[in-house]
């Protein structure tokens, strides 16, 4: 069967010594990053982007992916032990996880989180393998109008699901698109918005924007106030969960996985929303909802499973359609582009080794995470105590070297500094960077498809609506916009996002 053939190809790629090493490095780094407060997977992936240039494409993606779901996973450790989420999607785990730790059941909580994440990760990987090819086949038949509407929909969905008004989100997305247009216009050869700076002729390097927004701006923001943070770490006794705990968790894990898998595919704040949604859902269907908040093991199992499942399924639109659903996925796409691989449905047919190798290595990575995390708990908790004043200089040095190494260009570094300031200003104005980053990545392709669609329809903009699939995407966008404007739904969304902030 096609699936088995593809999977065996994938495992063949994933089990090569190099790729195993990259996978291992990726998940270890990812967990480490997930544990450290103040440094998220976004920053890490942004930092490592330029360096993956020198790695082979499969290895680079395997490592970056490992970091990504490793961090989703590692954030739960701090959430449980210290009541500090290492990752935004682990916020919900704090609620019951920390209570379990205070009751001396930290080991059980950690183990359940690990097992739950593993099961969710496996199921997520299977989903990618199952749904990837048919979605890709469908997408390959898309024409210019469909692509345009699809990308627009992704932008609008992301813009609507982040904090703040929909209008602002869309504005950010379009602003990002415009920045993405800087450089030479492929169609006409004209230079746009370069202001005679040679370094801009090829456009703004993606890593420059990423570094500026997610590393520099973040650091500036964190340095606003001198921070003293007391970290009290709960003792971890035994790591074996009780039979009772396991029995109660299995349902939660499966339900959480389902919710996470669904939300992960949607563009927008997939991971964070999914863990929150899984928690609320679990509480609703539980026979003892009052136990939640006091150390209910389901309160740990469900969100952990959800956020790991979401981390996996987020790859589906990214790899099959070339449409990233979040800033992190946009970074992944950026990494692919640095490797010279054009994002889109042709990735599966043009680079099967990369596609299936990546999927197979996700499964390996999930297994590694369980094996790694549990014994190394002591190490991770010690990491928690690293003061920020040691971290941020390291991030600064790493980012600067990374940016410079892309093109040996001083302009890139200076631009990154500018984007750092811009990113900081955006933060102060509560303008979300995620839609901007997505717009930036999709910008040139958006214009290309718009152009082509108009060319084919001879200047008729109705082509986007007369085409059924394209109309469908636009309809979804419109529905979402209207939904987000409706005060009641908007309040629920804001509440959900604020709670997870």
């Amino acid at each position: 069967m096609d699936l088995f053939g593809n999977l065996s190809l994938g495992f063949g790629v994933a089990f090569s010594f190099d790729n195993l090493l990259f996978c291992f490095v990726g998940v270890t780094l990812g967990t480490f990053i997930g544990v450290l407060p103040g440094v998220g997977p976004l920053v890490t992936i942004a930092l490592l982007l330029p360096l993956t240039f020198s790695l082979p494409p499969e290895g680079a993606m395997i490592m970056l992916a490992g970091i990504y779901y490793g961090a989703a996973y590692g954030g739960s450790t701090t959430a449980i032990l210290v009541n500090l989420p290492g990752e935004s999607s682990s916020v919900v785990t704090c609620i019951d996880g920390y209570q379990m730790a205070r009751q001396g059941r930290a080991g059980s909580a950690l183990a359940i989180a690990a097992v739950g994440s593993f099961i969710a990760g496996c199921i997520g990987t299977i989903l990618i393998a199952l749904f990837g090819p048919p979605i890709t086949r469908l997408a390959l038949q898309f024409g210019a109008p469909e692509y345009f509407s699809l990308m627009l929909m992704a932008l609008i969905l992301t813009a609507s699901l982040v904090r703040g008004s929909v209008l602002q989100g869309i504005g950010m997305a379009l602003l990002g698109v415009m920045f993405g247009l800087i450089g030479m216009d492929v169609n006409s050869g004209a230079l746009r918005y370069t202001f005679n700076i040679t370094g801009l002729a090829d456009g703004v390097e993606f890593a420059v924007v990423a570094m500026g927004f997610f590393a520099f701006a973040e650091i500036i923001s964190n340095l606003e106030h001198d921070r003293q943070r007391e970290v009290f770490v709960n003792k971890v006794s035994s790591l074996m969960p009780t039979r009772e705990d396991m029995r109660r968790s299995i349902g939660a894990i499966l339900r959480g996985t389902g919710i996470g898998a669904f939300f992960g595919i949607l563009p927008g704040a997939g991971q964070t929303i999914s863990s929150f949604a899984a928690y609320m859902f679990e509480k609703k269907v539980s026979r003892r909802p009052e136990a939640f908040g006091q150390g209910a093991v389901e309160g740990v199992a469900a969100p952990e499973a959800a956020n790991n499942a979401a981390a996996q399924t987020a790859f589906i639109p990214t790899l099959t359609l070339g449409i990233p659903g979040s800033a992190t996925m946009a970074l992944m796409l950026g990494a692919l582009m640095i490797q010279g691989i054009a994002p889109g449905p042709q990735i599966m047919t043009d680079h099967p080794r990369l596609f299936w190798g990546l999927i197979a290595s996700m499964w390996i990575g999930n297994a590694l995470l369980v094996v790694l995390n549990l014994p190394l708990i002591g190490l991770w908790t010690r990491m928690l105590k690293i003061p920020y004043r040691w971290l941020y200089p390291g991030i600064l040095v790493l980012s600067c070297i990374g940016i410079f190494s892309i093109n040996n260009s001083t302009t890139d570094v200076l631009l990154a500094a500018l984007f750092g300031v811009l990113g900081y200003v955006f933060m102060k104005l509560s303008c979300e960077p995620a839609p901007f980053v997505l717009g930036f990545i999709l910008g040139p392709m958006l214009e290309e498809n718009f152009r082509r669609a108009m060319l084919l329809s001879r200047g008729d903009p109705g082509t986007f609506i007369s085409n059924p699939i394209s109309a469908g995407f636009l309809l979804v966008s419109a529905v979402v916009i209207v939904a987000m404007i409706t005060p009641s739904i908007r309040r629920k969304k804001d509440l959900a996002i604020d709670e997870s902030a």
Partner: protein
Amino acid sequence: MYVTKGFLAGLLFMVFGGGAAAIAFTYRMGTATQMGPGYFPALLGVVVMAIGLVMAIRAYLSPEGSEPAERLHLRPMVLILAGVVAFGLLIRSWGLAPAIAALLVFGRMAGREGGPIEFILMLVVLTVLPIIVFIYGLRIPLEIWAQ
């Protein structure tokens, strides 16, 4: 006071959108069928400007809808900016080591925490480690001390 986040963000959008559209109109427009380089950016610029206008008006008319703008902390912003710029300017002409040093000095001034010994230690570690990892490990062509 109406200087809320929404208002300022709206203004920002208007500036960016308007500026981009103005520049775009100087490029060749072409027709809808055969778009010139200026068509799409001009379109986008106008839309962004319109969005900014709506946001600003909304925020102006009902300032309770948005939060008051937070203060920009200039010190860390300017110092980090200076540090990265220093790195960028120095790495070509003077080499990696001076560039890192400049970056760390500015970074330290932005952070204000930690003693001098710690700083020296950090300087050493964060210069030696990248040299090993990047220049020798990943073989990225960087000069430690440029001539």
